[in-house]
């Protein structure tokens, strides 16, 4: 009798507890999607779903809201940051996993992990006081003056050379995702079986040929998935971008000029939002941001499953 209580009842209670906790996690995720969608309902209803997505006015006084400038801002900044970060991150991953002697590889890998753990606000702080003056004085102003003299048509594309704007935000974003992208690529490269490399060496290949013909093709699924995950990181990155991008509701059509991303407009305006429609519009932007990161993560998952060789396919 005691055994029965101890065994069967105990098992039942324990499993029920675990299931309850698991259900709570699922409930939280579901509630999150629901609350953001329901909160943004008023905005979607007033402007229509596509009207809100494609609307390019963001004006609290006129009560006109559209997410297009922020959607574009998010896509442009994160894609540009990824383009900047990709090759260096891959190089660092190859160096750590293939070229460097053990002690150096461990030191570099440790440093990269350390830097991946540095908080976003710290990157933002550094960006405001070091990167912005640097970019303004040594990159934007010379370029702007040059274009004023030689190619006035370019000035509109470049935008005001104040340092605060898209360019600085992209640079800091690139710095922030490099460690993350690099460590994911490193993990993918480390999964390549040693026998594959040795077979290639036995054929007389040089080290680069082994990397180029064996390691990279074998690891490409993991590397691409890592790249997409880094993109997802960049899309959701909030604080550093908010501190550097200048937060303007204009369409982001100039390189130096201020813009905003979906995350930065929420961070910047939510606490001070007046009126139900602005609050609802910000929640709707949050809902769209959630959909976007979901889509990007699903793509990464898909790539990992489809493009992996061997172990990746489970």
């Amino acid at each position, binding site marked *: 009798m005691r055994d029965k209580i101890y065994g069967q009842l105990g098992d039942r209670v*324990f499993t029920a*507890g675990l299931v309850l906790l698991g259900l*709570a996690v699922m409930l939280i995720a579901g*509630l999150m999607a629901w609350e953001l969608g329901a909160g943004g309902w008023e905005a979607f209803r007033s402007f229509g779903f596509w009207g809100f997505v494609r609307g390019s006015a963001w004006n609290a006084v006129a009560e006109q809201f559209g997410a297009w400038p922020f959607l574009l801002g998010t896509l442009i900044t994160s894609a540009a940051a990824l383009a900047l970060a990709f090759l260096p991150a891959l190089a660092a991953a190859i160096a750590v996993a293939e070229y460097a002697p053990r002690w150096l590889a461990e030191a570099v890998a440790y440093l990269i992990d350390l830097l991946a753990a540095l908080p976003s*606000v710290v990157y933002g*702080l*550094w960006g405001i006081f070091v990167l912005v003056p640097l970019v303004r004085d040594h990159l934007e102003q010379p370029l702007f003056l040059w274009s004023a003299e030689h190619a006035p048509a370019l000035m509109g594309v470049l935008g005001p050379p104040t340092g605060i704007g898209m360019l600085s935000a992209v640079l800091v974003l690139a710095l922030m995702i490099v460690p993350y992208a690099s460590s994911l690529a490193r993990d993918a490269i480390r999964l390549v079986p040693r026998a594959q490399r040795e077979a290639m060496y036995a054929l007389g290949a040089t080290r680069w040929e082994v990397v*180029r013909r064996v390691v990279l093709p074998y690891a490409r699924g993991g590397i691409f998935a890592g790249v997409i995950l880094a993109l997802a990181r960049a899309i959701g990155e909030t604080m550093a971008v908010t501190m550097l991008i200048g937060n303007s509701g204009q369409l982001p059509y100039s390189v130096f000029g201020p813009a905003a991303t979906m995350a930065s407009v929420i961070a910047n305006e939510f606490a001070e939002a007046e009126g139900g429609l602005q609050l609802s519009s910000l929640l709707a932007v949050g809902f769209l941001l959630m959909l976007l990161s979901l889509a990007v993560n699903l793509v990464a998952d898909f790539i990992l499953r489809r493009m992996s060789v061997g172990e990746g396919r489970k």
Partner: protein
Amino acid sequence: MNLRRRYLRDRLMVALVYLGTLLVLLPLLFILGYVFVKGIGALNWDFFTKPPAPPGEPGGGMLPAIVGTFVIDLMALAMGGLLGLGGGVLMAEYPEHPLNRPLRLVANVLGGIPAILMGLFAFVFVVVPMGGFSAFSGSVALAILMIPIIMRATEEVLRILPWELREAGLALGLPRWRVTLSLILPAAKGGIVTGLLLALARAAGEAAPLLFTAFGNPFISFDPLGPMDSLPLKIYVYAISPYEEWIRQAWGAALLLALLLMVTNFLARRALRRS
């Protein structure tokens, strides 16, 4: 001739790869060094023991933010740890359970959602019904951030343990829940602690989910139902302020936060190696 060209290309690529690595490491090391140099000058006794001075006045410190960081993050760890551990144990120890597939999907989805949306959710779900900003709502946001990390780490560690360990326990007549609680969890202790610490380090650096939940508070507070300050939040507020003294202290707070996170990460690695 052909061989020489191949060797040349090999050397060239080695050089390029190392150059790329330097391109990654140099700016990042520069950031780290800069934070250290600027921050160390702002750390003094007052910084650790005093509440902030009124705007523009010299002096004052970070005590409320330091206390608040610990209160908010530990509350979040308690909530996130419970849910994350529960989910992780369920996925690893009851692989046949029908809840596992959707649960894993949800964990992946949650892990990919930007942190600021956790803050939005906590605002709508906790702040609005409770009628005001509170440390508790901030902890809820951070806990949601922690859940997928803890879940994944727990599941991975438990999966590594050999099935023989479970079978040995079952063969002795132990029911499954005792096997899990007395054999599996103790055996996986190191790895689980690592997961908890990594999740803590990840959440402790986030300012975005706290912007409209914990909100900030210049006074020392232990009240979980009232607004509370936190180091990342303070760094943000001070960094965009016009006051020189505040900016100086933002560097100090950045250094302190970076050091705290490094210590947490170091402890996490050590816990993993011990197990």
